[in-house]
């Protein structure tokens, strides 16, 4: 009887471990989206400040500034501030490069891959001043009629300044 109970306990423990492991290994999904999905953020009328950053796994200055967006998302938790990371990687690289990157860096912000290869058709919709170089970031809050577009890397200090001065948020 006794060894059997130990066996049972072991099996129980083992199954818990397995369940725990599978939870740990759960990966953040990265959706493959079309333009209307991005436009939901661009045209949203809710009083939320969206920080929409265009990046790619192959873009060195983009990757270097990603921690700033992650940090600001954490600082403004509970505030109507949402970071949206829009990957410019190719759709075919979603599972091979983008998902592993997002999980390796444990990105917490909203991430999706915009699969719209004809970039000339939508770049102006994000901002007419955008030439197409990345990194590029749009701050938009339509309810407050505020927007700010930057075609260059951003520091955490700059992110905070824009959020507090232009969009009147406090962390």
């Amino acid at each position, binding site marked *: 009887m006794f060894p059997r109970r130990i066996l049972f306990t072991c099996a129980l423990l083992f199954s818990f471990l397995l369940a725990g492991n599978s939870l740990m290994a759960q990966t953040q999904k990265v959706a493959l989206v079309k333009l209307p999905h991005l436009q939901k953020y661009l045209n949203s009328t809710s009083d939320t400040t969206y920080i929409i950053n265009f990046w790619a796994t192959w873009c060195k200055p983009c990757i270097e500034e990603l921690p700033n967006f992650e940090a600001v998302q954490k600082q403004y938790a509970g505030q109507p501030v949402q970071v949206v990371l829009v990957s410019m990687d190719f759709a075919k690289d979603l599972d091979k490069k983008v998902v592993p990157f997002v999980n390796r860096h444990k990105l917490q912000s909203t991430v999706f891959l915009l699969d719209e290869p004809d*970039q000339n058709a939508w770049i102006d919709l994000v901002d007419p001043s955008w030439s197409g170089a990345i990194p590029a970031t749009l701050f938009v809050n339509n309810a407050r009629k505020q927007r700010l577009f930057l075609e260059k890397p951003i520091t955490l200090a700059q992110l905070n300044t824009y959020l507090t001065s232009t969009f009147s948020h406090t962390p």
Partner: protein
Amino acid sequence: MKKPYYLFLLLSVFTLWGASAYKPAEGGYQVGDTATDFKLKNVNGQLVSLRDQKEAKGFIVTFTCNTCPYAKLYEDRLIQLHQKYASKGYPVIAINPNDVTASPEDSYAHMQKRASDKKFPFVYLYDETQEIAKRYGATRTPHIYLLTRSGQDLKVAYIGAIDDNSGDPEKVQKRYVETALDHLLTGKAVPQTSTKAIGCTIKWRNNS
């Protein structure tokens, strides 16, 4: 002992500040503007200027580099463009404007290697001071400026992307540069004079 330490701290803060100050091109050429000549070093060591090439009807000036995945995806298409249009009077002039400190693999030596590995049939010039990229208003790689001769001048006829699908040459629908060239070669107005595309930001030198 304390004072110099603070001074050093202040200095390093300013240095960091400077390092983060990317300077994108302001202004630059618009379609219809006259492009001025330049003299830049080719990968074979020779200085190249547009004025030297008197037989050319114009140029496919392309800001590109060794490192940007988008630029690399277009290398074969640039070679094809040159093969198709150089004999018709429009050669490709590739220019690398990236700062070597910010992007070490965009050095002149790496350019030479890339040009020889890919057997570039066109010149590949080094814009070491980044002056030409700034004058043109280039922001990314690849970034095309199609120039066409008008009397003594070279006029900007098209600015933008090569085509509408960087990732997959098989799925290209619109060949912007080819369409523009075909119109120029038959004396017609270019139907679409500017396009935008995702590309790698030019790696500007600090405080330049």
